[in-house]
């Protein structure tokens, strides 16, 4: 397994996209921290970038990379290797290089400028989101054979998680405005890792007071240690379930 991870990482580092992404994130976070007068505001600005750009790059890069390494996978499958090992090595290689890139690009500047619980929450959320979207992209790539369709599906998935889902939630909220929806909202957010991470970080910032009554319910639930544990557990579930499904699918895939 280690050997294959090594080859995947070497290959990813050889194509310069990851390097460019790292430098982009680094430039972005440094300029934000230097422009904003308080670093706490910097973290808030960074949060929006983390929640939109990081999932997009993770999901797109992973999908394109998996499709482009069809030959590599084909070569490995005919060798004395377990399919599960091949697939999980691919996953580990992609996830660890993207996490590394995120950590250098955003993690390090955040630690330098805003070494606090909020900063830590932001970095943890970013790392988890990166891995989650790698797992989702791998599931999509193994399910869909055609490259163009696969990448299209991945873009739609990203749109769904970052835009459409919120629209859907608003729609539900307005439709059921006469009913108490605060508790249900907690359950609904579980279905979107981006929203979940946003709430996790925002609650650490103590701006939940601005989120109205729902915010108070969120604070009551997510603000506690048990709530935080549940959030982290759900996010890990968002990694484990797609990864497990994609392994199962890859085990039966015709190559």
């Amino acid at each position, binding site marked *: 397994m280690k050997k294959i991870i090594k080859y995947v990482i070497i290959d990813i580092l050889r194509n310069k996209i990851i390097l460019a992404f790292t430098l982009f994130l680094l430039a972005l976070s440094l300029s934000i921290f230097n422009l904003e007068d308080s670093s706490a505001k910097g973290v808030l600005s960074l949060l929006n970038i983390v929640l939109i750009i990081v999932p997009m790059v993770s999901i797109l890069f992973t999908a394109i990379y998996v499709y482009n390494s069809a030959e590599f996978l084909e070569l490995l499958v*005919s*060798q*004395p290797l377990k399919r599960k090992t091949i697939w999980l090595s691919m996953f580990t290689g992609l996830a660890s290089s993207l996490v590394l890139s995120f950590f250098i690009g955003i993690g390090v500047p955040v630690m330098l400028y805003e070494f606090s619980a909020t900063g830590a929450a932001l970095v943890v959320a970013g790392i988890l989101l990166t891995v989650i979207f790698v797992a989702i992209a791998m599931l999509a790539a193994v399910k869909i054979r055609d490259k163009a369709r696969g990448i299209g599906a991945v873009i739609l998935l990203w749109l769904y998680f970052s835009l459409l889902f919120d629209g859907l939630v608003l729609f539900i909220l307005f439709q059921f405005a006469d009913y108490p929806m605060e508790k249900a909202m907690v359950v609904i957010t579980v279905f979107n890792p981006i929203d979940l991470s946003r709430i996790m970080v925002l609650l650490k910032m103590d701006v939940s007071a601005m989120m109205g009554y729902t915010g108070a319910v969120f604070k009551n639930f997510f603000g506690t240690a048990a709530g935080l544990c549940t959030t982290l557990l759900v996010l890990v579930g968002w990694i484990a379930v797609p990864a497990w499904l994609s392994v199962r699918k890859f085990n039966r895939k015709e190559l």
Partner: protein
Amino acid sequence: MIIANNINKKFGKLQVLDNVSVTCNKGECIALIGPNGSGKTTFIKCMLGMVVCDSGFITFNSKNILHDWQYRANIGYMPQIGRYPDNMSIGQVIDMMKDIRSSKQLQLDEELIRQFELDELMDKRMRTLSGGTRQKVSASLAFLFNPGVLILDEPTAGLDPVSSEILKEKIIAEKAKGKLILITSHILSELDDLVTQVVYMQEGKLIFHKKIEELRADTGQEKLSKAIAAVMLKTKYL
């Protein structure tokens, strides 16, 4: 050594393999022959576990291959179209394979790499290679780990006469060592001095599996190409 039992495989509605059963033993050199689209490559891929069959089972050294993967250490596979990571060089691909498959008791067989003169091309990227050079890499990789079974899918397609002669010599030498060799090819004339048995497939069905002497006796033809042509005509009019 390899026993395939009632293999069925469908791609959508198309029945690619229809109740195929074959027994392959050590020291044999088996030619898999059949028209295009008769399921030869699919059958080979089933043996390698690259395609999972719908029903039936395949055993390798009397172990079911379904949940096994170690058996592939005993197989050298040369695909019909060798596809390799584009931005790796020949040397990197070969080193990677050595790294993945290496074990201490393994004797590497680099004869083909030398004979194909791949040493001078080691730094070339895979995407810049011609079809023939790619085939040479595939062949070298198949023989590199001294496997007990060699599965060669159209080995000489795209090779120049000199290289295909080198490959044929190598196949004969390996056969003499008592290895099981499976070949598919459409160039029947070059199979004449290689194979000991013939498996003929058509539309996913196994038509016959015979020793080459039997086939010659049945059809009264000395040349494999003529014998197969006689069989093809016969099945056409049945």
